[in-house]
């Protein structure tokens, strides 16, 4: 409890935007829990509810595990997506378990859930009865396709929903199979919008006292990032499709090989003036002085050839040398970083973007922070996701005020399984 007491002590560091806000989260995997993570990182007390019989799938089904040995407290995914939270286990099939969590919700500000539509109501957590007891409750239900509609009950994972929303059709070389957008891409969009919806509802509650029920369809949230293409199809009759690394404005615009294995840089040229700057940076080779490259239309017409010429310049150079030369000329260029290289990237390091956080079993887990820095109420991240049931005593004893004997009796009855 020492560690928790330290966290709870006021005045040890700068204030937090969500100090005093308590959040209960009944969900699993990424889409619900990552919402809670961002709230926890900014000062909310977030309690992740799961059970020993059905722990979060990020503890059980998804690698990686420490040393590749599965186990609920060895799961990197859970530790990564749940940093800064408290963790409790409750058996929600036990009526007393439902009562306890409802009590907890009554003492909280926000309830987040990410089960398939209708699941919460069946388990005794329908919004109407919760709101009747607690009119100020902000409740977020985040699921694949929303709480209503003909596909509300259809199961799905984020990686595949990303396909349904049209993103994957836009990724890859033309005339070839599309390639995947790595990971559950659309889930992370829904997470961002989920946090925004909760924050906006909390802001309104401050002036009205009124809570809000938020029905978030991960599919609909994702489509916010497809706006221009959806409008284009309706008004021009076109079907936007994948175009490799090409752009509608910049030319050249692509990824070029450098010295070493699978090493690349990205480079884009947005105006004829920038082209002239690039030509100089490349050392004014004879091919580049051809008149046809002077205009965007000319470069577009010969873009394949242009890409090969630029690759001749990049191929013998290291990424650092090539990017250094191009950036020195104020051109847009960047190395294509691998995931491992991000941990050494000087800009991300400057922003303390990855936080190496302690975990009692795994050791250190490198969690992400929000991609914005708040000058007066910065995020605070002190520990990776909790081990299974780590905070049962704090939550059921400290917050709900159940005595040691009562908790022991409930435990014997299987309420905390």
């Amino acid at each position, binding site marked *: 409890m020492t560690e928790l007491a330290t966290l709870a002590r006021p005045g040890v560091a700068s204030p937090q935007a969500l100090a005093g806000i308590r959040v209960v989260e009944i969900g699993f995997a990424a889409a619900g829990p990552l919402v809670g993570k961002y709230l926890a990182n900014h000062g909310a007390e977030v309690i992740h509810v799961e059970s020993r019989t059905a722990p979060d799938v990020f503890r059980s089904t998804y690698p990686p595990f420490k040393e590749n040995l599965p186990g609920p407290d060895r799961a990197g995914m859970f530790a*990564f997506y749940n940093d800064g939270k408290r963790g409790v286990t409750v058996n929600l099939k036990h009526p007393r378990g439902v009562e306890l969590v409802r009590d907890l919700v009554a003492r909280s500000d926000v309830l987040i859930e990410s089960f398939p539509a209708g699941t919460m109501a069946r388990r005794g957590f329908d919004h109407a009865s919760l709101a009747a007891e607690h009119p100020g409750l902000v409740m977020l239900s985040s699921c694949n396709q929303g709480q209503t509609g003909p596909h509300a009950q259809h199961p799905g994972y984020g990686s595949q929903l990303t396909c349904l929303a049209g993103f994957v059709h836009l990724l*890859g070389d033309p005339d070839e199979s599309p390639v995947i957008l790595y*990971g559950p891409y659309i889930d992370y969009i829904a997470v961002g919008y989920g946090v925004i*919806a909760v924050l906006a509802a909390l802001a309104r509650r401050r002036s009205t006292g009124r809570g809000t029920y938020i029905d978030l369809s991960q599919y609909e949230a994702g489509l916010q990032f497809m706006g221009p293409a959806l*409008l284009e199809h309706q008004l*021009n009759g076109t079907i936007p499709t994948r175009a490799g690394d090409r752009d*509608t404005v910049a030319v050249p615009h692509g990824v070029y090989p450098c010295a070493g294995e699978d090493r690349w840089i990205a480079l884009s040229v947005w105006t004829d003036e920038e082209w002239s700057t690039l030509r100089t940076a490349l050392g004014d080779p004879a091919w580049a002085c051809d008149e046809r490259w002077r205009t965007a239309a000319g470069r577009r017409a010969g873009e394949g050839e242009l890409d090969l010429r630029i690759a001749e310049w990049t191929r013998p150079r290291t990424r650092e040398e090539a990017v250094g030369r191009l950036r020195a000329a104020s051109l847009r260029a960047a190395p294509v970083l691998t995931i491992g290289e991000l941990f050494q990237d000087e800009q*991300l390091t400057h922003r303390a973007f990855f936080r190496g956080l302690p975990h009692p079993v795994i050791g250190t887990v490198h969690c992400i922070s929000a991609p914005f820095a708040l000058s007066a109420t910065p995020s605070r991240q002190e520990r990776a996701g909790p081990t299974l049931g780590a905070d049962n005593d704090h939550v059921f004893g400290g917050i709900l005020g159940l005595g040691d004997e009562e908790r022991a009796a409930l435990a014997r009855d299987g309420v905390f399984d």
Partner: protein
Amino acid sequence: MSLPSGPELRPAGSAEPLVGMRVIELADGWSAQCGRILADLGADVVKVEPPAGDGARARPPFVADRPGPDRGFWWLALNANKRGVTLDLAHPGGQLVLRRLVETADVLVESLPPGELERLGIGADRLASWNERLIHTSVTPYGSDGPLASAPASDLEVTAASGALSLAGEPGKPPVRTTLPQSPFWAGMYAAMGTLLAYLARGTTGRGQRVDTSAQASMVTVHPPAPVFWSLLGEEHSRLGPYLLGRSIVGARFRNIWRCRDGYVSFAIQGGAIGRHTGKRLVEWMATRGEVPEALRSIDWDRFDNTTLRQEDVERLEAAVAPFFEGLTKREFFEGVVARNMLGYPVSTVADVLEDPQLRSRGFWQETQIDAAGRSVEFPGGFALFDGERPRVRRPAPRIGEHNDEVYVSELGLRPEELAATRAAAVA
């Protein structure tokens, strides 16, 4: 015809929790989605453009492929629900007007290159001196300070610098970018999140603060679990074309995109309760249309575990499934998986998305008139339902200077001589 105009005097409906918030947005591409989100939620967002208009108005493609400041799809999509005024910030009179705007605002959102506001003489300290409650949100490629702060970048470069690019494409070929640029959406979304945290903090502290958003860092959030594999095991994930990694503890990859009769579908051989159900129903479905290959018939789906499959096992199963999908259209596949409650979706085009019955039934699309010629289009509607109500597209993106009189004269009450002092050179 008349387009909606004037300050919106309306009750704070459920879907507009931010009614009463005032946002000034200094034009540009990186921050536009931030203002759009706040505007959707009911904030009054006033976009301040240079007299010649925001550069984002020039981004193609355009309506009917004819360029024009009000015809770009990017412009139209990211600036709905905002009002628009013009102002020359380099002009001293323009700065006086900006001050009047800032004094009325809760939030200033901008995406000028780091240092540019200081060069104009309106740096963060000056802005705070005008209004100590102001939340100053910036969106830049790499953040407002640090070793790369001044490096210029577009979507392609920040995506490269985020690691996301390295994960997309075929092995051995160049990494590929999503053809519809994504980082302006991600960065704008996180800027809105940071802005609302600062807005809530202000309720306690009484003061505004800086919200410094990095597009590079925003794009690092799009690709977990790849960083988790690096953190725990030192394992570097890379691009695998249409395959998924990370479901197997012995490193097998699973096909996630399959050819079908008229395009592609997304499906994977999975474990877990839903994955096993999906496999069982797939075999039943295949049996209704012909012989089921032995590799699939012999599986006991109740005990099926994909985490321990070796690569050759996976490939044997996938070879048995592929011909079945090749005989189905996207629509047949989608209707089939929905009817059987199986995992799987079509790889949709925007045309498929617009026909999706689920979105129609939830009233997602919002018919919006976008120009004086009466052209209208269905916008993606608000991102969630608030007590059953969806945030609306209340007005299309503003024309250049459309709300100058309304904002400067009617609302700020600028005197004619104040406007006269700026109009010729500054206020278009």
